[in-house]
């Protein structure tokens, strides 16, 4: 556990000394604020529900920027050889990296607390659904990041990692559209696997254990896949 902490610590230092971290958090906050302003003008209720929907999509474009460096750059610069010849397990490295990206994401989430603060000043929002929405945002954000980390483990090139994870995320996010196709079991499976279909209930204040389990298993699955991917250097 201490080793995970050391890897995490280095990751956070690096994310905050490179401009990528600041720029991504700042740009994300800017775009969210723009949507908040649009929604506040047209939506008569003191509720975060539509903004959560927007945030889940803007985040989808930014999460790959948080993770694109993480393993790809280690491979390119050769620091991979430091990590994987030190007395660390592959699991410790992957977990430390994942938690590092998650920490940067948390900063952007905390920055978005200005919106409910505004709502509280100018209206009387119900904080139950807002808390549930934030839980949903953390979970779906965790899914984005783990996909990004996984794709970053497959390449040496940050740009490839960014585009690749964005593409995969867009597909997984919009799998829900499959439900509009003629009904059969495969379509329902695809729709179930969609990231977006599990998100809406949270924004309405409904925390369904099934949705939580879905997201947590999604994260666990891709963490496992990432560990296998970095392990594959051993068998190639």
């Amino acid at each position, binding site marked *: 556990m201490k*080793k995970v902490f*050391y*890897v995490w*610590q*280095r990751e956070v*230092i*690096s994310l905050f*000394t*490179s401009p990528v971290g600041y720029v991504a958090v700042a740009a994300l906050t800017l775009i969210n604020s723009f949507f908040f302003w649009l929604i506040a003008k047209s939506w008569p209720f003191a509720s975060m529900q539509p903004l959560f929907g927007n945030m889940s999509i803007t985040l989808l474009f930014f999460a790959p920027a948080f993770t694109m460096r993480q393993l790809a750059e280690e491979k390119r*610069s*050769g*620091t*991979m*050889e*430091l*990590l*994987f*010849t*030190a*007395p*660390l*397990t592959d699991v410790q490295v992957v977990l430390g990296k994942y938690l590092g990206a998650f920490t940067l994401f948390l900063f952007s989430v905390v920055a978005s607390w200005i919106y409910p603060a505004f709502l509280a000043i100018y209206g009387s929002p119900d904080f139950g659904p807002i808390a549930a929405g934030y839980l949903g945002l953390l979970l779906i954000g965790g899914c984005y990041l783990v996909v990004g980390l996984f794709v970053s483990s497959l390449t040496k090139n940050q740009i490839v990692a960014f585009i690749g994870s964005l593409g995969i995320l867009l597909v997984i996010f919009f799998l829900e559209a499959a439900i509009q196709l003629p009904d059969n079991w495969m379509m329902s499976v695809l729709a179930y696997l969609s990231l977006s279909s599990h998100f809406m209930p949270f924004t309405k204040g409904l925390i369904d254990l099934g949705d939580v389990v879905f997201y947590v298993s999604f994260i666990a699955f891709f963490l496992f896949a990432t560990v296998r991917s970095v392990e594959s*250097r*051993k*068998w*190639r």
Partner: protein
Amino acid sequence: MIEVEGISKRYGDLYAIRDLSFSVEKGDVVGFLGPNGAGKTTTMRILTCFFPPAEGKARVAGYDVFDDSLEVRRRIGYLPENPPLYSDMTVRGYLRFAAKIRDVPSRQVTKRVSEVMGRCGLEKMDERLIGHLSKGYRQRVGLAQALVHDPPVLILDEPTRGLDPAQIIEVRELMRSLSQEHTIILSTHILPEVSQVCKSVAILSNGRIVASGTPENLQAGVEAVCHLDLQISGSMSGAAELLSKVSGVLSVRTDPAPEGAVAALTLDYLPEEDPRQEVARALVNAGFGLLEMSTRGVSLEDVYLRLLKSSAGREWAGGEPPIEESLQSGSTGEEAVSGGEELPEADEAVSGPVAREAEVKA
């Protein structure tokens, strides 16, 4: 300290190393010598547990690199071919990180990092960003990283690559001082480095060890013929003829462009029939002035080139750069004889060029 039995590693269809076996005693300094693509890096990655061998066994300090990988890693300091540096960290921050992931106890991290910065000449650089350092300092940080947990075994992949001559000498000095307390494996394609730093050498080619031993033994192995360099005054053609008749002399060559009346000659002879006294007597008796006489053994470079030539033809044809091209003579130049110089056959003795050149002189 290190035992390797029949390890192999393949990339696709190509064997990077094949059925490699060797062992390294505690306190040894072993040099892997070989052209690019010989398999040096691959072997080192197996020893450092970056990846396991596809076949065979490797043990470090009694622990298997696959079964007890974490125990092996604790005992090894590794400097990869490209120093594994995070350019966005400071030197001190980076070394602290390296110490912590290498199990240096928290209370000792600060002390160890300062010690190792002193040893590698980094005291004044401690708050610099690694990305702003010169190549020489980056290499020192790489070495410091490998030393920070005071490992019994050091594995250094081309530690002097890309450094300027002064830096190369510094790094060699550092390695020599480290060899007091550590077992070291280093790889290089620079020949003089091996004989300066290493107690023993393994020559790799195409994923196999083609020769190993101390630098002296390797040289002795092919030292069937010795050379004698002479400088004399007087007519060259007469001298060459005279000397070729001395018993024990296999052949005589004149070196091109001798200055003025001084002529330079090289004799080949078998070590068991040392003709030096006879040569001196014959020259003096015939009225020549003997200005200088010195013997020259076979250099490690001769051994290296011959072994590579004989192994390259046999095994995988193609896929390898020509040996001469990838062989870089040491920048300090000690010991380096002109590359590719072949020992002449005995039948070349006193051949055409000698006579012709001598006529021009006369």
